[in-house]
């Protein structure tokens, strides 16, 4: 709440500063940003807001000659909170464009809301549930980024072929984003010949995993862990304390730098663990270095490098900016021109790839397979093993066959 309040004051101050300058354009563009600024995700959510702001700061706070006003709203990872935040932005602030949300099921909720609000264009932040775009998409909901399955591209094959894991157990949180991550892993892994005999779906925020730890079958070669933040730390600690020694395969947010930086003996389990992610904090690419430098100079109080959330909110902001420039700020006829331009937009991402959308308005992305390694000073980092280019939402498989797998759920996909 404090963070949000500070943010509102900040945004308010920026808005006043903008207003006090001589106003050349007759109009201004209002952009709402929805991110999680309370609870366990607060610091990550704040980094998402930084990403969106960065895109407009780099352009000098103007787009197509018009001033940009950014209004930030907080949600709390639940779908209804995201909808409430969006309603407030639409009905009260009259925003033209909404950037966000952060978490999986929130994205599905905003997509549904977008169907009844055609006068507003929604650009997804970092929410990565498959069905936000893949099924029942909405023509004013865009995602300039991948879903959780795309973020796992390359990992299943790597685990089976390079590491030789024949059987893997899954431990994941029980909501749409981990479902999608498990799909991404299993679609490759099972196709390569691997088996997943058991999946454990645990509620978000579970503290005590000990009974799950002891239920993991003895004959699996590794565990695929798709848990975030505190949940990952708790599971790994308890697994280590129980004497567990199976190798770990990480989901996108499981092997986040914040977890590698947290303290505890569990970290030795992670060395050598592969994971899939679109964002690698110490990636060596030229564009990433430039992006990091720009981030650090604009937000000295931010993280030591941009997180996946800053990266994705930045791409959303960038897309909005470029789209508005192309149509010269024309939002008439329910944003018709803007939507057409977003559908055909192409731009270079901070990781050096080319971002463009498929027919479901979902990004075609470049993905990394990474590995946790011990740096010389004893701390842990992620290094890139493999870059998988042009990953589309069907993971390169035949679209009809991929669609026939059905919506992701606890039971789907399955290969025991």
């Amino acid at each position, binding site marked *: 709440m404090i963070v949000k309040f500070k943010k509102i004051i900040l945004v308010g101050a920026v808005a006043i500063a903008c207003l006090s300058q001589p106003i050349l354009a007759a109009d201004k563009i209002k952009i709402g940003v929805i991110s999680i600024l309370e609870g*366990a995700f607060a610091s990550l959510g704040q980094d998402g807001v930084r990403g969106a702001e960065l895109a407009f700061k780099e352009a000098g706070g103007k787009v197509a000659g018009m001033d940009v006003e950014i209004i930030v709203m907080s949600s709390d990872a639940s779908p209804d909170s995201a909808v409430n935040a969006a309603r407030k932005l639409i009905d009260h602030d009259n925003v033209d464009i909404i950037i966000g949300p952060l978490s999986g099921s929130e994205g599905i909720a905003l997509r549904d809301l977008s169907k009844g609000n055609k006068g507003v264009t929604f650009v997804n932040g970092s929410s990565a549930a498959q069905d936000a775009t893949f099924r029942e998409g909405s023509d004013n909901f865009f995602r300039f980024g991948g879903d959780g399955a795309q973020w796992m591209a390359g990992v299943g094959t790597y685990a089976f072929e390079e590491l030789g894991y024949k059987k893997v157990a899954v431990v994941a949180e029980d909501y749409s984003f981990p479902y999608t991550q498990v799909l991404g892993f299993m679609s490759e892994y099972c196709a390569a010949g691997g088996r997943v005999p058991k999946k454990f779906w645990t509620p978000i925020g579970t503290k*005590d995993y*000990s009974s799950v730890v002891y239920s993991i079958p003895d004959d699996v070669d590794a565990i695929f862990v798709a848990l975030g933040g*505190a949940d990952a730390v708790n599971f790994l600690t308890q697994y280590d*304390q129980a004497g567990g020694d199976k190798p770990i395969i990480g989901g996108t947010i499981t092997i986040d730098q914040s977890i590698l930086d947290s303290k505890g003996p569990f970290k030795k389990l992670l060395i050598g663990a592969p994971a899939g992610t679109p964002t690698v904090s110490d990636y060596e690419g030229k564009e990433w270095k430039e992006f990091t430098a720009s981030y650090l100079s604009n937000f000295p109080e931010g993280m030591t490098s941009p997180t996946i959330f800053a990266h994705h909110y930045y791409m959303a902001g960038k897309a909005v900016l470029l789209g508005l420039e192309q149509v010269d700020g024309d939002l008439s006829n329910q944003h018709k021109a803007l939507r057409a331009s977003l559908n055909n937009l192409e731009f270079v991402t901070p990781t050096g790839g080319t971002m463009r959308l498929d027919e479901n308005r979902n990004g075609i992305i470049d993905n990394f397979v990474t590995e946790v390694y011990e740096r010389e000073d004893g701390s842990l980092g992620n290094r890139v093993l493999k870059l998988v280019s042009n990953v589309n939402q069907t993971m390169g498989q035949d679209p009809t066959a991929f669609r026939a797998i059905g919506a992701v759920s606890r039971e789907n996909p399955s290969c025991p």
Partner: protein
Amino acid sequence: MKLFFIVFLNGLTLASLYFITACGFTLIFGLMRTVNMAHGVLLLLGAYIGYEVVEMTGFWVLGIIAGGLSCALVGAFLQAFILGRYQGDELRQTLITIAISIILADFLLWAWGGLTYQISLPEMLQGGIRLPLLNVGYSVVRLTLIGMAIVVGVLLWLLIAKTKLGIIIRAGVDDREMLQALGFEIKKIFIIVFAMGAALAGMAGVIFGSALSISPGTDIQFLLSSLVVVIVGGMGSVGGAALGALLIGLAEQYGLAYAPTYGVVFTFLIMVTVLAFRPQGILGRAEQ
């Protein structure tokens, strides 16, 4: 079958943690009828302070003491200057503690950020041992929890059953007005008991942060589990808290092991059943 026994042990250790947390809550309610909704945030505060102290000094026990003491101070302050003014007006007190809980939680988020913290354990509590008979590894710190819960339970029982303060507290639970009429300074006693309850929350926080981990949101989770434990066990009864903790801990762990998705339902099924057939809790006394 092996899994069944291990889950039983897990349930027992989790129950120990719940018991230590719920003790403070039930103690405060038992004497003052104050439903302290700030109990969870006191737990989180104690855990953060314990973390800092352990990082600075390297002594785990010192962290527990520091966490307990600092929460005792905050608790005493709350009772002396805020809640004490509205003694007897339970609804208002409850609403005030909710407000305090929200405000304090945001201050903690501001000070310590959204990261997950783990308090480092002393060498001898780290890692696991192999259990005889079952032949599986089990973490030492979890086994220690059972011991800690027993120590806390016995100390509390001694305090309440054998000391002068205990006699006053028990008298206060039965008849506050009479105690006051006999010349006991009820205000001071309230402050002491509130501080004790808060200290228990703070210490539970440090223990919790060592055995599992702490992050924003832990406060609400533990407030909820404390509430459920004391509702099931009976508000104001230490024995009830122990029984409630045991039931809830076992239900949660068996749920997680055998039906992970619906595990949380068992907890609330127990609560609904108890409320339907024995609204005062299993060991609670009905209001006269």
